[in-house]
């Protein structure tokens, strides 16, 4: 649709953030289709200045009828959008339930509850509600949205087919079997349960090492996880890598032996498909949207039986044939999240509301 305007709106924009990455990808697709398209964010990291504009600078043009809003937490953005004469395409990335933060972070719990309430005010303005998974779509339908569809997260392969950080790779190669989890350090991600698993695995593989890559997002949780590792006698086998660059993240995945997730709430689970794409066997707790994202690939578990899970990981480390079959199946599964297919789906969604 040459000449038409279709901007995107985010609550926050930061490098490496899954929602920001999706918005950047969608902007490219929209521009390729001939739309004038920018990304506006309420809060933004300094590093995003070249790609994202502050919401305070947004002025709706007279011919602008539509906007795309990515919703994942309560903020001022929904109020700001619904008071404008805009028809919205809502992209719902899911809201982590407040119960996970109730006892540790009252502000985060408040924002989660606010985000859920804001679905109410967004609904009348929303022409099409897109969810990144069927799990999220079901939530939208329960919230009363009638016109919904699934628009999965897309993995831009050019960001993964990159040279490794050789220095980091050499350092990682010196440690024992490497378990990896990528995600913000937050109670819903249950990094603590990975430490418990490490405790059991180290009886079998004393050199096993757990790498937790992700922002220490929740105040105190990182320290608590470290303290637990100390109490369980596995502190030397734990590395909290913090937030890392894209190159380092790819290096961690390439160097790891197993990706393991104990997360109890994922609206999609981007690191699962990142690991699948980069040939790392995935073992994941089947919570929320995780089984849907995994499809028939990897290994899912529905009970946190630490000792048998440690045996499973030991088996995956020892049985090359099983490992290869899992990796092969994962490679087939991840095709559903690559650009040609997901981009076609996106264009089809725009066509549904007459935008293409």
């Amino acid at each position, binding site marked *: 649709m040459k000449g038409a305007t279709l901007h995107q709106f985010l609550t926050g924009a930061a490098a490496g953030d899954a929602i920001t990455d999706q918005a950047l990808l969608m902007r490219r697709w929209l521009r390729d289709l001939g739309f004038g398209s920018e990304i506006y964010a309420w809060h933004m990291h300094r590093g995003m200045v070249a790609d994202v504009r502050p919401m305070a600078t947004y002025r709706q043009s007279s011919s602008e009828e539509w906007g795309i809003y990515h919703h994942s937490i309560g903020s001022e953005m929904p109020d700001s959008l619904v008071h404008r004469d805009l028809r919205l395409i809502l992209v719902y990335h899911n809201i982590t339930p407040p119960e996970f*933060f*109730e*006892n*540790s*972070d*009252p*502000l985060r*719990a*408040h924002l989660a509850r606010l985000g859920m309430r804001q679905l109410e005010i967004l609904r009348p303005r929303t022409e099409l509600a897109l969810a990144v998974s069927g799990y999220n779509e079901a939530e939208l339908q329960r919230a009363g949205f009638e016109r919904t569809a699934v628009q999965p997260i897309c993995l831009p392969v050019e960001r993964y087919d990159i040279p490794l950080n050789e220095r980091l790779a050499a350092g990682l190669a010196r440690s024992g079997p490497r378990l990896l989890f990528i995600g913000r350090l937050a*109670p819903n991600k249950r990094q*603590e*349960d990975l430490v*418990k698993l490490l*405790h*059991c695995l180290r*009886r*079998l593989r004393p050199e096993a090492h757990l790498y937790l890559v992700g922002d220490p997002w929740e*105040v*105190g*949780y990182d320290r*608590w*996880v470290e303290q*637990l590792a100390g109490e*369980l006698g596995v502190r030397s086998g734990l590395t909290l890598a913090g937030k890392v660059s894209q190159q380092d993240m790819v290096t961690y995945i390439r160097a790891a032996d197993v990706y393991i997730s104990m997360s*109890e709430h994922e609206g999609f689970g981007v690191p699962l498909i990142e690991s699948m794409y980069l040939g790392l066997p995935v073992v994941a*707790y*089947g*919570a929320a949207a995780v*089984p849907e994202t995994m499809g*028939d*690939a990897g*290994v*899912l*578990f*529905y*009970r*946190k*039986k*630490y*000792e*048998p*899970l*440690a*045996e*499973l990981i*030991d*088996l995956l480390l020892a049985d090359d*044939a*099983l490992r290869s*079959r*899992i990796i092969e*199946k994962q490679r087939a599964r991840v095709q559903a999240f690559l650009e040609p297919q997901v981009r076609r789906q996106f264009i089809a969604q725009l066509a549904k509301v007459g935008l293409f």
Partner: protein
Amino acid sequence: MNESELSPQTNGPWLEIHDDVITSDELVKEVERRAAHRRAELGSVSLDFPAFGHVSTYPEPTGDAGNAYLFYYLKQANQFSSPVVEPDLASSPATQTPVLGRLWSRIRGEMHNLVLFYVNRSVREQNQLNLNLISVLNEMVRTIQTQQAEIDDLRGEVRRLTGEDEQTAR
């Protein structure tokens, strides 16, 4: 929280794999067999783990009329352990003023958020301490309740045996 269980979406095995060589059932059997063998070989491993931020791990004990003070204050502590700082900004007539009102509203909003940022940081730390202390208190009260029940049972048993002795003596 040791073996947390997801609401089982299937009645099937707790591990799920789609593989041409090994089924989910076979995989479960294999890893559980290995775990049992390992336990026999190396001894059992302690799986009594704590969980982060969960007072609910130890549900608040229910009171008994015999100790009203203890349960009154325990209830108070459980109710007010996590003061929530709601970032609501009340409207002000000054914000309705044309042009300047919007600017004033924005400045107020930013100041409000700044204060909340620092207040919440401190509140979170204090909440964590409160919750740790309340978790301990709840768990101690539950332990006391269990011990009290055992003491009551033993007292009853002593009374019964003493009564039997007296009857025999007569």
